[in-house]
């Protein structure tokens, strides 16, 4: 089965990103394909490189980043949602004359069309959020 995943909530405040991580991991381990994980609303905060959770807690952005590296999956932050919330990759930072970028490795920033494409191309779209 080919899955599209939508994550609508940020890490820690809400369980949605933990659930999405667990689902994505389980699907990949069972041999399913993850066409794309798209991050929207506060979900874009899953892609920050600046999170420092306490050492005895899970590091959610790192977990996504490692998963992307291990399975070569496509993690996409919505550009409009990311700009609103101050999540920038290097080219976005440069283009908007900002002093720094803060997107963790394994993610990329793109438009909402990537979400619709995941809906069209995937066999299932699974939404994590409220």
């Amino acid at each position, binding site marked *: 089965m080919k899955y599209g995943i*939508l994550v*609508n909530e940020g890490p820690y405040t809400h369980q949605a990103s933990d659930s999405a991580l667990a689902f994505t991991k389980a699907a990949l381990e069972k041999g399913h394909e993850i066409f794309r994980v798209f991050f*929207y*609303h506060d979900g874009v905060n899953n892609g920050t490189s600046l999170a420092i959770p306490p050492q005895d807690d899970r590091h959610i952005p790192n977990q996504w980043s490692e998963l992307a590296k291990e399975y070569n999956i496509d993690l996409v932050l919505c550009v*409009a*949602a990311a700009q609103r919330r101050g999540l920038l990759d290097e080219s976005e930072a440069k283009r908007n004359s900002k002093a720094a970028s803060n997107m963790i490795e394994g993610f990329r920033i793109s*438009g*909402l*069309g990537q*979400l*619709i*494409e995941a*809906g*069209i191309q995937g066999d299932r*779209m699974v*939404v994590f*959020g*409220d």
Partner: protein
Amino acid sequence: MEDGDQVIKKFMYMNRKAPYGTIYAWESLEVVLIAAAFDQDISLVFADDGVYQLMKDQNTEEVGMKNFSKTYSALGDYDIKKIYIEQESLEERGLSLEDLQGLKYEDEDDDWAEKDSIILVSRAELAKVIDEQDVVFSF
């Protein structure tokens, strides 16, 4: 589902939250406006507090948030013709269709006659419509 090489799927956008207080309603509308460019079969649903998104005469001056309620009236121009409103959600909030803005589209197959996009459905009917979808986004 297949139309030549072009896959056409049934996409549903379910709006369940009040228009202000959180950003979900506004960002959901942004998704719908982008999605309209993809030539898919689009339906919108307004249920639960989502019915407040279509209230007439919204005024956001005091809360300092952008009043995006007029954008809904452009949905017809984006070829979005199926807007389901759940009857029980209206009733539970003491509302009726009279309290909501009207939404229209122009039917290209009927000499561009202006037609109503709003379809009032019961909770049970809505469940059937949801069941027919390929992709359901809930915001």
